[in-house]
């Protein structure tokens, strides 16, 4: 399924953050996945445990935040919660609603382990400058 492809995108973004902050390792990643994003949280989690191997996020935990589906009704102006295959307004039943949330597929937080080293500038931290997914892991 496409969760593995998404994980590769996720890890590329995480590597950019880690490299920019000269991190030795990534410890925790928080993503928000809405029910209408087309991504299954359990599959994303499983794919992550495979995709993280050999990256700076090798030891990282992935937390997946579920986002509720919320809609704004163009007819009556009410805001309500909706389900994945029935987005109609809970107040008046009109289908002409605008989605306020529930299709998110976002990287929200990255927690890094950064080695505080006065000589950092002379010897850039591992992973910096290789541009892509960092190929080493710190244990």
């Amino acid at each position, binding site marked *: 399924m*496409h969760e593995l492809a998404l994980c590769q995108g996720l890890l590329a973004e995480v590597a950019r*953050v880690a490299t920019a902050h000269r991190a030795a390792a990534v410890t925790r990643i928080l993503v928000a996945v809405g029910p*209408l994003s087309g991504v299954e949280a359990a599959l994303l989690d499983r794919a992550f445990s495979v995709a993280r191997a050999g990256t700076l996020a090798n030891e990282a935990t992935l937390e997946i935040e579920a986002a509720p589906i919320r809609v704004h009704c163009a007819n009556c102006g009410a805001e309500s919660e909706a389900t994945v*295959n029935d987005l109609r307004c809970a107040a008046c039943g009109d289908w002409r*609603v605008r*989605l306020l949330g529930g*299709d998110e597929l976002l990287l929200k937080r990255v927690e890094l*382990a950064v*080695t505080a080293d006065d000589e950092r500038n002379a010897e850039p931290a591992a992973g910096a400058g290789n541009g892509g997914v960092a190929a080493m892991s710190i244990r």
Partner: protein
Amino acid sequence: MCDSCGCATTSHHHQVAAAGGAVRPGAVERTSIDLVTRLLRENDHVAAHNRQHFDRYGVLAVNLMSSPGSGKTSLLETTIEALGDKLRIAVIEGDLETENDARRIRAKGVPAVQIMTGQTCHLDAAMVHDALHAFDLASLDLLFIENVGNLVCPASFDLGQHANVTLLSVTEGDDKPAKYPVMFRAADLVLLSKSDLLAVLDDFDPAAAESHLRALANAAPVMSVSARRRETLAPWLAWLQTQLATRRGEPAVRSRAPVRHAGV
């Protein structure tokens, strides 16, 4: 980092493991970075690039999605027969294996590139970008991208298309929009294909299919078509020509990702 893509809202950095206030050389600090980045940012970037190519040459790009076997290639064959002498058409075919579909399209006298995805269940923007090198966009009006037959994964990947057309064949259930909401929410047009079979099928109700689509807050038109009954294609052919005219009249109109994004 956050400035480079312009997508961050906040960036908080705090040390949680710095000993005694002063940071000791060699000590490991924990840093937390808050950001808002689409997981598909890289794909979105390539898709926007594809869209720029299409817009530069005034090409309308249509992404066709459906279950396997719902008649995408047959629809394209009949569409090419009907519009081939009015519009310059090309097709990108996506399948896990075989060149069969591209051969069928080429037999109609239209250039076609087959992308064989192997085990990948969808096309992505980079695959389409590579395939575009095979075409001279300046000599095209209309590019169809026939996605991998799959009602799940293709909906998540923007290819740079201007419109998503989702086929639902009447041999499938009329509740498919309720079962695959992400796909049908992304549709700009829904075609009920193989509609000539409606006469012998009593369990597919086009009105029910449409009401499931509306429950997804999708106002997309729904048209019944049959590749075997050329006359049923008239609304679809008119829709294509209107889309092309609109696009050429308004080169800077909205660019659409496959899914309507709420927040970001």
